[in-house]
């Protein structure tokens, strides 16, 4: 796969279709892969990588890249194409300046899950028939592939590309995923249990803003949390209230636009399951206003920019499920 991608990228660079390539760059270790822009065949051959660890969603970088001179080639996984489409719809990405090649998605691996097994000093990770063979300074370890699958891939919603100029490999289908199971589980808890659950999770927050800055839906030039005129520009969660405030508003600002790409939870240094907040909004929207998948197209009206005269009243919240 990686060879085919490099070959095609080199071709497109050579024939002048594009002048840059957005992809992933090899790091010091097998897993520390950085999104990068390549401009020459040599760079591509030396550093371009696409493997089990290339999880990062490249769409957000295209907001800036598509405004530069010339056309850029971007390799997008199925989930990334949803974010891409959403940004095109919001006029953040200039579609004509991007040449999209759809590539098959995951499941990708999460190095944290490997380390959680107590495996350390990792030198290499090989996938042999869905068993991971991990070379470390302390010897060789093995573990099942499935146990190291990234959280954002385990609830995969779709293997279908919703935007591309060409494909490498086959297109997939929208999946019948179980991604709302955890949200439903929380909904069935008591109010006190839910409060305790979130109190535990959100108190870990260090307000590093990684979830916000990585989010392809968060593309405001000046975020309300950075704007001194907003009156809520908190640098640190000085009180537990501010933790809740930040995360509620962060999720609310992307409600109806979040494609559920899972980047927020992936990047959280404290492993807070932030995607559950976003999924809660998606689940509510689906249930109350009809099925909606942000990024699936570039023309539909977002649920929060829309209404029906017979929409439900907010009192539904008070009447359903467990108090």
């Amino acid at each position, binding site marked *: 796969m990686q060879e085919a991608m490099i070959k095609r990228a080199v071709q497109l660079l050579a024939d002048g279709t594009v002048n840059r390539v957005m992809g992933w760059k090899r790091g010091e270790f097998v897993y520390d892969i950085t999104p990068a822009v390549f401009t020459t065949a040599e760079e591509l051959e030396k550093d371009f990588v696409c493997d089990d660890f290339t999880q990062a969603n490249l769409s957000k970088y295209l907001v800036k890249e598509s405004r530069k001179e010339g056309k850029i080639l971007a390799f997008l996984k199925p989930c990334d194409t949803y974010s891409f489409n959403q940004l095109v719809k919001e006029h953040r990405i200039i579609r004509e300046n991007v040449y999209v090649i759809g590539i098959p998605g995951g499941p990708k691996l999460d190095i944290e899950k490997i380390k959680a097994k107590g495996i350390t000093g990792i030198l290499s990770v090989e996938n042999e028939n869905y068993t991971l063979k991990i070379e470390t300074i302390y010897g060789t370890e093995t573990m099942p592939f499935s146990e190291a699958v990234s959280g954002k891939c385990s609830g995969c919603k779709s293997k279908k590309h919703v935007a591309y100029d060409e494909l490498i490999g086959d297109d997939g289908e929208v999946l019948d995923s179980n991604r709302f199971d955890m*949200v439903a589980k*929380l*909904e069935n808890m008591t*109010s*006190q*249990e*839910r*409060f*305790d*659950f*979130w*109190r535990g999770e959100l108190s870990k927050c260090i307000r590093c803003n990684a979830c916000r800055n990585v989010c392809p839906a968060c593309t405001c030039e000046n975020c*309300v949390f950075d704007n001194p005129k907003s*009156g*809520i520009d908190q640098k640190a969660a*000085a*009180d*537990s*209230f*501010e933790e*809740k*405030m930040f995360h*509620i*508003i962060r*999720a*609310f600002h992307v*409600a109806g636009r979040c494609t559920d790409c899972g980047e927020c939870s992936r990047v959280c240094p404290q492993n807070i399951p932030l995607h559950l*907040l976003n999924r*809660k*909004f998606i689940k*509510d*929207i689906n249930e*109350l*206003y009809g099925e909606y998948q942000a990024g699936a197209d570039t023309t539909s009206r977002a*649920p*929060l920019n*829309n*209404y*029906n*005269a017979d*929409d*439900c*009243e*907010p*009192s*539904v*919240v*008070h009447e359903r499920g467990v*108090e």
Partner: protein
Amino acid sequence: MQVNENFKPVIVAFCCNWCSYAGADLSGTNRLNYPANVKIIRVPCSCRVNPMFILRAFQKGADGVIICGCHPGDCHYTSGNYFTRRRITLLYSMLDFLGIERKRTRLEWVSAAEGAKFASVMEQFVSDVQKLGPNRRLEDLRCRKQ
């Protein structure tokens, strides 16, 4: 649940200028009583109420927040309250999801002619919140009254 009779909850009511605020006015001119611990904030339209306003009210000491707007279809700006309805539904649902007591939040449609409804809604809401006791799950400890 034990109810502290001495507890006077602080209620913030965001009222739309065209209907609910006039409704509150009417209830006043009709000499209808509604609890004095309801603090009314007048907004041009219920959809002016940003989710942050609601959270800020809780932060600064509110025990309950209620939003009042024109009845659906009667919005002075044609469709403002339809957007309010979706937005606030999702927000209240999220607060509930985070374990904040659901009875601390409410939305009611009150027209300019419904002075009696305004008074009874407030009466009811205050009594609901009073049963819950002071807001502890969504409070900012720094702002607790000393």
